[in-house]
Every structure is written in C-alpha cells, then in structure tokens.
C-alpha cells in the first residue's frame, strides 16, 4: 500500500477540520507516535544536512541567536533603548544556550531525552560551564570582562553546536543506509 505524504494527510484533514486544527492534530499524532514521518530523501552530505532547515534549523537559530546577542551588546552602548532586549538575550546566552548546545552534542538522538529533561540539563550545565570559562579567562591577560566573556562563550557555543550537528548527521547517514 502506498503511504500518504504529510501534505496529503494535512489536506485531507484540513478539508474536514480546518487548517489550524488539522495541523495541530497531525502534530500531536506525530508526538504520540500514531503516525511516523519517513524522509524519502535524506541529506547525502554533511553540507546538505547543514543547509536543510528540516534537519538543522536548531543550528542556524542558535548561531543567529549568538550573533544577535553579540550585536545587541555592541549597539546598546549607542542605543540604550535596546537595553531590555540585551537583558533578555543575555540571560538566555549565559543561563541556557551553553548547556543546551552541550546537551545536543552529548545526546544527539531526539528520543534519548524528553524535552523537560533537556531543559533542566541545559540550565544546570550552563551554570557549570560559564564559571569554568570565567575561571580560565581569569588566568589570561583578558580577565573576566564583558567582551572576553562574550566572545569566549560565543566561540565555545559555535564550536559545540558544530560538533552537535556532526553527531546528529552520523545518525542521518546511518538512516540513509550508512554510506
């Protein structure tokens, strides 16, 4: 029997229930494992994996977030109205993302941890990583100042998110057949 595509399922459901309800229902069916989504054309290379948003959206969102935070910190000295935004992004930059990206690298398979476990581990690990980076910075000529902390966290997060992407790609490669 030919399996239906997600689009066919969605169109069928949205005719009966409307677009929003159909989308939500399909999402929950997928979460509850009532339907299984199979990619018939998985990425063939790491570059393709990185460029496909259905696989690497999290990576680009994280990278954009890191760049945006650094940019916001840079411009708030000239535009103080953006200060609340800086607080908001800065909180996530220090208290969530360092741990979140490490968790992604350590547990690349989605089903290994529940979203709640990921959230808890992300916050906990962030609290452990940032002081360690601070400790190392303390013994460098740069010291624990705004820009060295900002840059070293950015470098750490970019590096670890790249490692996480590679580890996720290894599973996609296996899914494709391992070649």
């Amino acid at each position, binding site marked *: 029997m030919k399996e239906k595509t997600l689009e066919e399922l969605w169109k069928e459901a949205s005719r009966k229930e409307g677009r929003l309800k159909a989308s939500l229902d399909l999402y929950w069916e997928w979460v509850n494992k009532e339907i299984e989504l*199979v990619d018939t054309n998985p990425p063939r290379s790491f570059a393709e994996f990185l460029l496909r948003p259905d696989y690497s959206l999290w990576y680009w969102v994280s990278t954009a977030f890191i760049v945006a935070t650094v940019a916001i910190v840079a411009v708030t000295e000239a535009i103080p109205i953006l200060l609340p935004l800086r607080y908001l992004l800065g909180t996530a930059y220090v208290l969530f993302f360092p741990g979140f990206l490490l968790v992604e690298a350590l547990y690349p398979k989605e089903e290994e941890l529940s979203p709640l476990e990921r959230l808890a581990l992300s916050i906990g690990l962030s609290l452990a990583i940032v002081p360690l980076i601070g400790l190392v910075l303390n013994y460098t000529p740069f010291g624990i100042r705004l820009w060295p902390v900002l840059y070293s966290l950015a470098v750490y997060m970019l590096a670890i998110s790249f490692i996480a992407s590679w580890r996720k790609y*290894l*599973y996609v490669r*296996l*899914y494709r057949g*391992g070649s």
Partner: protein
Amino acid sequence: MHRETEKLLVATLLASGLALTLYSYFALANIPLTALGIGILVTAASIIATYPYTPYREAVQSVLHSYTANISKLLEEFSANNPAFYTPDGLVLVPLKARGMPDLKKLKAENLVHSDPSGYYLVLQSPVSTTTVERETDLEAALTEVVVYSLGLCDGVKVVSRDETLILEVSKPRSFKEGTRFKKVLGSLPLHVSVTVIAMALGKVVQVGEVRQTGKNRVIALLKVVEHATQG
C-alpha cells in the same frame, strides 16, 4: 559513547588534571587552579570507578568462542542457508526447509527442530538471557549495555529505525572466527547478539537482511521487523 573515546577521555582528564594540579600547586602556588586540577582528577577517577566493565569478560569471550564453534558445526550439519528469525524470548529459528513466517504459537523451546505449516526450523538458544534486557527500553542503550559493556563484542553500536526496518551499525566488531555459514545465517557473532537484544527489547520477531562492511571496521546491517510472525 564508544569505548575508545571513553578511554581517550579518561586519559586526557588524568594527564591534564595531574599536570594542572602539580603545576598550579608548586609553580604558581594558586589554590583555585589546584582545586580545578583536583576536580579534573576526581572526575577521571569517578569515570574509572563507575565504568560498566564485566570482570569476567575474557572468560565470557572464551565461552562465546565455543558457542560460535558449536553453532557453526550444527549449521553445517543441517546445511542451513537462510537468515534466521530472532524471537523476543531469546530463541533463534533457523529455517531449514521453510517458506514464509514461522508460527511461534506452537514453538517449544526444548525441541531442537520446530515444525509448523510453513516448514522446519532449527531452534537455537541465543547466548543472551531474557532477564538481561528490559522490554521496550531504549534500543541503543540496551545494545550498548549488553554488547559493548558486558560482553565487549564491539566498540560501539548505533541504531535507527526506518519504516519497518532497523539499521544497525556495529563499530569495531571482534572476530570470533565464525564460519561462512554462520555469517550467512546469523551474521557475525556481535551482530547475532545485537539482533537478539533488539528482538528482546522490541518484543518482536526480527530477521537479518542485508549486511555490509562500510569504511574501516564498521558493519551495517538492515534488520527486518517481522510483524506477521504469529507470536505465542
């Protein structure tokens, strides 16, 4: 995490922790850095202390060598050729003169040969006990526990599912001098044990499909989950 990676991590932690501790205490006279060095050493020590290593691994592997030799002789005697079925009870059904799927309702573990309308099957007991594997656990965790840590049959395993197929990757599998027929019917021993664990963890009948070597020391097997086998 692969065993080699773990060893490398522990070695790195030990070397860097020791160097940092000694250097920061004697040369720098710096207490926070000394504490960091000791912390790294404690981390390495905890990894070593909690390493899930079976103390009788060599003995287990020697028994597995004998198991492989015995089963190879048995398969040779029965001229088995087709890929075996792995049941959730830890039994392996090797088709002798069979077509289609076995009927597991009538299967008696104490018989050497099982017969049902689909044909005759050689009944083997796999080397893994059903109590070792919990049903409906995470497949990769169960495989790592049994195949990598307890039995030391390979350095790492990865598994993903695609439709009704499971794709299993075994890294650096140990060789047990399996005969050609053993490999054809059951796969290599690490693969044989892995599929047994998968069948137990899934609670379904599994059959090995295509097996191929990719890259250096990496074996990939496509496993079919046989939904239609009548289970007892």
